[in-house]
């Protein structure tokens, strides 16, 4: 039910902006807009259902884990 609601909201959002963009032949805007809307709808569905999903901050943790260990080795903490 709630999934359907979110998807309907996404369709409405697309309905508001996309026709104008296509009519003005702004293809780059249309492409960026629709890909962003697809990603947004995907994450909103996950958020609205409170499903578990790996946090994007794990990328940051993965990047800085060696740095942190290196610094901890130097300072001896």
């Amino acid at each position, binding site marked *: 039910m709630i999934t359907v609601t979110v998807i309907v909201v996404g369709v409405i*959002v697309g309905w508001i902006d996309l026709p104008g963009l296509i009519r003005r032949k702004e293809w780059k805007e249309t492409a960026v807009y629709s890909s962003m*809307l697809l990603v947004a709808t995907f*994450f909103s569905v996950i958020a609205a259902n409170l499903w578990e999903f790996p946090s994007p901050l794990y990328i*940051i943790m993965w990047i*800085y884990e060696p740095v942190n260990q290196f610094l901890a080795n130097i300072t001896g903490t």
Partner: protein
Amino acid sequence: MLEQGRLGTRQLATLTFMMVIGDMMLIYPSVITSYAKQNAWICALIGIPLGMGLMAMFLKLGNMNPGENLVQIARKHLGFWPGTLLSCFYLFFFLIGTSTHTREVGDFMTSQIFQYTPIRIITLMFVITIGWGAYKGLETMGRTSELLLPIVIVFILVLSFCLLPKVDVSNLKPVTDTDTVSIMQGILVSIIYPVGETIPILMILPYTARQAHRTRDVIFAAGLGNLMLAMLVTISLLVLGAFLTQHSIYASFILSQKISIGGFFERIEAIMATSWLISTYFKAMIYLFAFMVGIAELFKLKHYRVLLLPACMLVFGMANVVAPNLTFIVITIVPYWVDWDTTLGILLPGLLMLVMVFKKRIKSISN
């Protein structure tokens, strides 16, 4: 030019102040105390001039490239593809920043004030509000921040002064207990958390009017904001002590619950929460604005405002995905977040400055 509006110097300064204060009021005392223990107030005070220096570097970077935002600066000086990569890194930070602030608002409200409201509702309301603000444009944000600034300052001052009867100086002792590394970490946090996170100011600098004293006023605003935070850290150390400050997630909120003057003036924590919400609102709005303008600049779109609705939906989705639980943002991620902020706030702008100075030098030699 993507945005037509023009910010005045005073509005830019108030926005900077809001960005320094925003979101830090609640979590900054516990983060800095977890590094420097009872000497956190010294670190916070040392961080004020250093933070003003960092702000001066941001402004110098903006002033050396008038009329260009961060994406354009990076592309101009590093070349197209490295600049794009750097911009993507920054845009990721802006998106995650907005989502994190939204999530913090949701977590705070559902755990302390509206305990039976689902977090999605709070998040949705906050996202709609920041979306409306970003839709109205930069000038409106600046004027609104001018209007709401006194409320925030007065609330912080009331909080600090009403707690003076409960001060216990022995909480600050012993002074010589912490080692040098912890002190250095505390100083780094006191620079990078409040001032380093104002990096989106580089995205709004091109849309401000170039008036006299702009640099001075903005640096002064950053210093003032940092001073307010140092005051909060000091008062929470004096009243709660290092242990309680470190281990309570919302230290300032607990502080405001402790205010009781003559059994009459008490329970003003909702006012404190309001002032935190106002400042966080501005910070999240600037981050959302920077994200939209950055995306529009990255793909060379004609206008950014059309991206508003998907961006808001993305922030709503990300706000839930960004952290599995409440303690993730406040405890688990903090060491990595400090590194990330250091990279984005000090190292990469410093790298850009170096490249620019180097290019100028080479040009002057070859002439």
